[in-house]
């Protein structure tokens, strides 16, 4: 609805990478048994994606599934369809032990774009961001400086990142500081 706004309403910064707050995104937390075919089928039906392996995500168009823990998935969808998808999943899983919740508004999403995107993340997260170690399809739930975050790479020079909505300002300022001209590391080639 028109009353709905994201944490930073599309704020952006241009340094040696471009940092943009991505506006509202649909996100669901799904907890359940990954071994259950009912769950696999339900997730596939909503997202048209297979269940991701550990530390990966599967995406298709504007939907996707990411591995959060041995019994937790993050489902990506359009913001306006999140509540509907919650209802669909709840219905499909009614005979299972599960938990599904709309967490779209608990989060903020950022895009870091440019050749330096990998190293900007590697200044803030204790993750091997080299192309050999972190490729498209990988997903990492970790921390960014002092706050929890998760990210993945839709293409070779773009990182998409989610954090809690309350720290959107902090995360934006972190990425801005790390991506300032003159702070290039040039570690990955």
């Amino acid at each position, binding site marked *: 609805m028109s*009353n709905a706004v994201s944490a930073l309403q599309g704020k952006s910064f241009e340094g040696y990478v471009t940092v943009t707050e991505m506006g509202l995104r649909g996100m669901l937390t799904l907890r359940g048994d990954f071994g259950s075919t009912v769950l696999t089928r339900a997730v596939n039906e909503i997202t048209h994606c297979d269940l991701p392996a550990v530390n990966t995500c599967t995406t298709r168009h504007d939907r996707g599934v990411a591995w959060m823990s041995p019994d937790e998935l993050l489902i990506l969808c359009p913001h306006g369809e999140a509540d509907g998808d919650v209802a669909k999943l709840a219905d499909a899983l009614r005979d299972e*032990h599960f*938990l599904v919740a709309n967490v779209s508004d608990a989060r903020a999403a950022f895009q870091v774009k440019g050749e330096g995107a990998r190293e900007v993340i590697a200044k803030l997260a204790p993750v091997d961001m080299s192309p050999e*170690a972190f490729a498209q399809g990988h997903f990492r739930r970790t921390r960014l*400086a002092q706050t929890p975050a998760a990210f993945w790479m839709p293409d070779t020079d773009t990182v998409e990142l989610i954090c809690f909505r*309350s720290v959107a300002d*902090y995360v934006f300022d*972190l990425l801005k500081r790390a991506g300032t001209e003159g702070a290039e590391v040039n570690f990955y080639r």
Partner: protein
Amino acid sequence: MSTRLATGGRHLDRATSVSFDFNGRKLKGFKGDTLASALLSNDQMLVGRSFKYHRPRGIVAAGPEEPNALMNLGQNGHFEPNARATTTEIFDGLTAQSQNHWPSLDYDVGVVNSYASRFMPAGFYYKTFMYPAPAWKHVFEPFIRKAAGLGKAPKERDADTYEHFYAFVDVLVVGGGVAGLLAAERAGKAGAKVLLLEQSAHWGGRAPVDGAEIEGRPADAWVTDTVDALENMDNVTMRNRCMGAGVYDHGYALGYERLTDHLAPQAAPRHRLWRIRAKHIITATGAIERPLSFAGNDVPGVMLAGSVRDYVVNYGTSVGDRTVVVTNNDDAYRTALILKDAGLDVPCIIDARPHGGGALMEDAKAEGIRVETGKAIAKVKGGKRVEGVALCAQAGEGAILEEIPCDAVAMSGGWSPVVHLWSHCGGKLIWDDAQAHFRPDPAKAPTGADGQGFVSVVGIANGAMSTGDCLTDAVKGTNAALQGIGISPKRTAAPQATEEPENPMAAVWKMPQGASYKLRSKMFLDYQNDVKVSDVQLAAQEGFESVEHTKRYTTLGMATDQGKLSNINGLAILADSLNAKIPKVGTTTFRPPYHPISMGAIAGEASREIFQPIDKTPLHQWGEENGAYWEPVGHWRRAYCYQRDGESVEQAVNREVKATRESLGLLDASTLGKIIVKGPDAGKFLDMMYTNMMSNLKPGKCRYGLMCSENGFLSDDGVVARMDDDTWLCHTTTGGAARIHAHMEEWLQTEWWDWKVYTANLTEQYAQIAVVGPNARKVLEKLGGMDVSKDALGFMEWKEGKIGGFDARAFRISFSGELSYEIAVPASQGRAFWDALLAVGEEFNVTPYGTECLHILRAEKGFIMIGDETDGTVIPQDLGLHWALSKKKDDYLGKRAQQRDHMTDPNRWKLVGLETVDGSVLPDGAYAVADGTNENGQRETQGRVTSTYYSANLGKGIAMGLVLNGPDRMGEVITFPKVDGTEVQARICDPVFYDKDGEKQNV
């Protein structure tokens, strides 16, 4: 005098002159100079005063081991104390000031300490400042504090930025000398991902200075080719001006990169801390030359022999026209030869060995240099600079044979491998008698999780003393390291170096060996902390036999250089005094960092606006725009009150309190924790988590609940709503959301792993707004949508629907005693919903209120607050909350603990209300006194204030407190002393001050 030579200086760009400021004087150097080489080129031999005796001190070394040339660098936000002149590259506009002198470097008053030095032996402070006890606080400590510290503390906020970088590699090579370069090249060629760090601005280390030849060519040429080759390898990253600072468990290492220290202030980060994970770490950290201990070895102009030639070769700088070389090994002859070659005079080489050196000695003699073997320096002549040396026999007691005039002394006591990084994580050392140094014991490497060593040392750091041995060792060490991590090395032989055979060195720990006390008390071991040979001997005499005790008693090696020059010499003297072998005495512990690193680098990005994350609710921006007076609650910022124009905080709070009770208040309650608990066993689980029953709550209903730790203490509270058959929503306190979620998950994952329960923390999904006051219902009805009438939504019920077009969940719960709804909307709609409430609430004088008003409203009703009434030692029974402790349940967390003797003790202080006799506000945390005193002579107490406020509604102070037998003493007056010495009387009363029957919330 020290000066610039007409030619030479491989690091200099003589076409580019650089001007800088030293103690207010404008000086000139060349691009490529260090501050030390530039000062020497300007004949600035005196660079500082020593810490204890304020003795004049000059530059001793050319690298990070320098103990004396410490500077205050930069100005204002770029000021930094204790920077080493030898590792500081000059740039136009650099400002430096020498340290620890007053009024000036040349005329220092503190130098009287030097004349009193025989009254300030080791342990002086411990012995002197003992009695009388009060003198410590009022006389000694202020005096010592004033004297302590070499540099000044910065006065302004650091103007620079810093950052971290996480790097993951196969092989980390620390040290860019020939051994390190070769190690990196071999690892790179084998396909390993390599990171090579070098602390200085230049690759190649000592080899080019020492005239080494590799593969028949000067070392410089080999270094250039190898650096080129490495730069062309995609799998190798090279960083100079980046020191390997520390090695830690699991192949973790820190690199300290100085990005802009050699430039005028920049926008780019000043330092970058590399946080490295390496499968294997190779340290090629070289060696540090040891000083010799002779009387006056601290007079400016006495330098390490290797450093003297560094200055000539690298910076075209001569320390003096006439340099006497004093040594116990062949290497120092190279200094004599280089000086001679530069056209300078070497009056004498004093070799402590009876038979002198080998081929290098013959070369020196061929150059016409006088060589005196079996001799020593009895003492150095001169005060602020060297004027000459007195020659004596090394075997004797110091009878002067001859005085040799000179301007400088180049000393060499042998070379100690830099074993710091090897030792940081537990690598052990062996004593090498032939070289009189400790080197790594390859059999006892620091080990990783698999029990295998993860650090190797190569080159001179591993005790390979010649260039040829260094290269062979580097290839051998690297090949073994690569194999250890599953990478096959290429089998090619090590490059060959041209060698000159050397005679063995001889251990010389004092000069002459039979020196008198008078001479020994002028032989400095630790220049920075003024520790002399006589001090270590005294410590040994007084029973400080452990090297660690001696270190602390004498302060040997405790200065900012951490004993890089003094440790081995000091412990050799200690061993000698104890009549023990050196390896028996052992070394002190090597701890990271190798060399001081900036606090900024450690903090990384965490400064200014990103010092710490600040959690902001969806309504934060509105608060910023409307006078919010913020207070931190956990990581959140919550409005304490909203100040209007001209209002004080107190006035704002009182206005909010009255407006809410009289008409309508709004509270941003978004920070309250909201945890979903779902599953077939969720009810059973919540019955364990909470002290009261939650499993029998009906869907659509709410219940207030208490949570205790397994020790019985009250941990959190909040309202639980049952969403459907197997789903509950648990509200927690603001600070408790993450903690309680983790608490639940811990029990589920470790204890009740077979219970079918899932939890999710949805705290941030919702903006939650408390709509409070007699007009709360009216304002919601004006927004329209959901029926919020008494019948449709009773007290302690909740409902989902649309309110004013917003997706809303309305909870009819009250923490104020008023008619109250807490409305949760998706966070993205929070601000719009708040604005809508403000707009339709205008006619009811709608008043946003902050946390202080929230506290006062709840205190007027006698509601407890976690963190005020509880402090980790309080149980629900103390607070009269027996009604919330289920008797029907077999168990809940804390139940058993609450049955223990101490918990059932009738003398536990209990919650009561407190009203002052004069209507004033009790001081927070005040204690009520009782008769008599305890065993410590302190006044007995019988209670304390837990919450205290001014109630604008009641026009007086109200408080709650825990009081001995409180509930049985209603009406009794007790006394609270205040910090200003006066007392206040308060009457014990019911904690519910307002609307005792709860009629206002139940409408």
